């Protein structure tokens, strides 16, 4: 292992982490603004930044937009009293926020957020072409599912550690919900791998670059089976999206939190930065989930124009592809935020019913049908 690899990986890790944290701060802002507009309110419109705030038109506009709000929120989270109630189980109480944030961040490692950047040589050193993914694993999606299933522990542990009834109920609900939707999620992506024939996320994107996005008629329609496969992919896409909502505890599946029933669910006893870490964990998980949707179904960093649908050879194409990935992810984040203010929460039994008796059979049938269609296509 040479030093360039270490340096580049360190830089990638730091950049991805920084972008994810900033993105999560602004996702919170977007959530507040969107909810405000949907509910006929204004949303955060107070915080002004010292120098920029006094620029004539732009300053007040940014203030009205609430652009500086995340900064103040962050400072506030650090300055607030970090209160540990007497009745909690201390060690688990400390551990839970970390465990809930850490899987979300780990998922970001395998997501290819861009094709490659060609740095060429800078200052005499040959940097060459760098793949825009932190860890290019051959079992990318398996790794993701393995890690995603860990995220339930943070919430269950928080519920257990709080040693009071509402967090405990939240933890129990979370464990049941996460497990049942994880199965559906896993089943929904199997057809995608059957199409691609590889578990590497980079390969999935490459397949979509060559054959068309999973949601936009992969295969091009030369064979009748392509249309059937397209329908299967759309079903997969729907199920994966629903399961992603459930996995990230977003409405209409936010039973572990359920403010109206369980005070604040698993994080009731948390305050200050510890609560903020739960919050960040949730939003980073959202970002990771949306990024996974984009990678698996919407072509990742590819754009359906010639020149942008293959691995970038020069720096600018690479940057534009990263931007394309960001825009797609932002779009799905927007959908996730919007849905929160649109649908009421499911009842516990409805949730289980939907997961086990509707989505799981559909996902299983989807696998069989996809297999038959692929067999038909290749037999012909």
């Amino acid at each position, binding site marked *: 292992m040479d030093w360039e690899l270490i340096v580049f990986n360190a830089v990638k890790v730091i950049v991805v982490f920084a972008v994810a944290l900033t993105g999560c701060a602004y996702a919170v802002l977007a959530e507040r603004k969107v909810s405000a507009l949907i509910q006929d*309110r204004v949303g955060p419109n107070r915080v002004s930044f010292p120098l920029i705030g006094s620029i004539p038109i732009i300053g007040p506009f940014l203030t009205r937009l609430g652009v500086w709000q995340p900064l103040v929120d962050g400072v506030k989270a650090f300055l607030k009293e970090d209160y540990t109630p007497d009745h909690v189980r201390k060690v688990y109480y400390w551990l839970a926020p970390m465990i809930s944030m850490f899987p979300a961040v780990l998922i970001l490692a395998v997501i290819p957020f861009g094709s490659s950047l060609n740095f060429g040589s800078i200052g005499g050193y040959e940097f060459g072409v760098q793949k825009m993914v932190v860890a290019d694993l051959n079992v990318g999606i398996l790794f993701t599912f393995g890690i995603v299933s860990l995220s339930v522990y943070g919430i269950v542990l928080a519920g257990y550690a709080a040693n009071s009834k509402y967090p405990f109920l939240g933890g129990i609900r979370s464990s049941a919900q996460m497990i049942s939707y994880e199965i559906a999620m896993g089943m929904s992506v199997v057809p995608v791998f059957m199409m691609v024939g590889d578990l590497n996320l980079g390969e999935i994107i490459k397949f979509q670059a060559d054959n068309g996005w999973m949601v936009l008629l992969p295969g091009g329609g030369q064979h009748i089976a392509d249309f059937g496969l397209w329908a299967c992919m759309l079903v997969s896409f729907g199920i994966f999206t629903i399961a992603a909502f459930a996995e990230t505890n977003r409405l209409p599946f936010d039973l572990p939190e359920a403010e109206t029933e369980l005070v604040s669910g698993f994080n009731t006893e948390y305050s200050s930065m510890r609560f903020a870490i739960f919050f960040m964990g949730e939003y980073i998980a959202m970002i990771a989930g949306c990024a996974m949707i984009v990678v698996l179904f919407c072509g990742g960093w590819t754009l359906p124009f010639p020149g942008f649908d293959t691995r970038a050879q020069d720096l600018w194409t690479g940057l534009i592809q990263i931007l394309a990935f960001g825009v797609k992810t932002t779009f799905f984040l927007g959908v996730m935020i919007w849905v929160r203010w*649109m649908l009421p929460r499911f009842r516990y039994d409805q949730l289980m019913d939907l997961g086990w008796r509707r989505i799981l059979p559909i996902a299983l049938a989807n696998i069989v049908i996809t297999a038959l269609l692929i067999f038909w296509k290749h037999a012909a």
Partner: protein
Amino acid sequence: MKVVERKELSLWERSYAPALIGGVKVTAKHFIKTITGQTKVCQQYPEEPTIVPENYRGAPYLVKDTDDNTKCVSCQLCEFVCPPKAIKITPPGQDGQADRANAEKMPEEFDINMLRCIFCGFCQEVCPEEAIFLKDDFSLTGGSREEMIYDKEKLLSLGGTNHSPIKKWEQKQKEAKAQDVFPVEE
């Protein structure tokens, strides 16, 4: 008696699709109307002050009577009844003197901890002298915990003069004043 028939949900309805479509419609309508300024959005609170209705029950303050005397006689009933124990009265002791006639004493100190007060109004209800009233302040702020403990002077200045038409001691006071003039004219 009319029996309301509960229809079975159709397959289309059970697929949650109508709920989704309806949800998108409603939220999009509100979103667009608010963002284009068609909806009159809520009050911009600190700039547009809230005008509370008359008889609003906000923070409890001490009041003076129309002769500028402290009405409180330090009976400590409010201190006793206060559920969150926000009121602390220091009575004047044996040599205490009131600043008005018809009163034996007045409080040496009268503190209300506004961080504890829950605006329940028991103090106003229990007060036999009608000396404490829930006024229309509801947003009390301070830089420290000490600052939020309001002392007698502050409470009296915030409470102002009570112009209530009911004057409990007016008749008694008149009689007492009449007795000061001797002999009593028939």
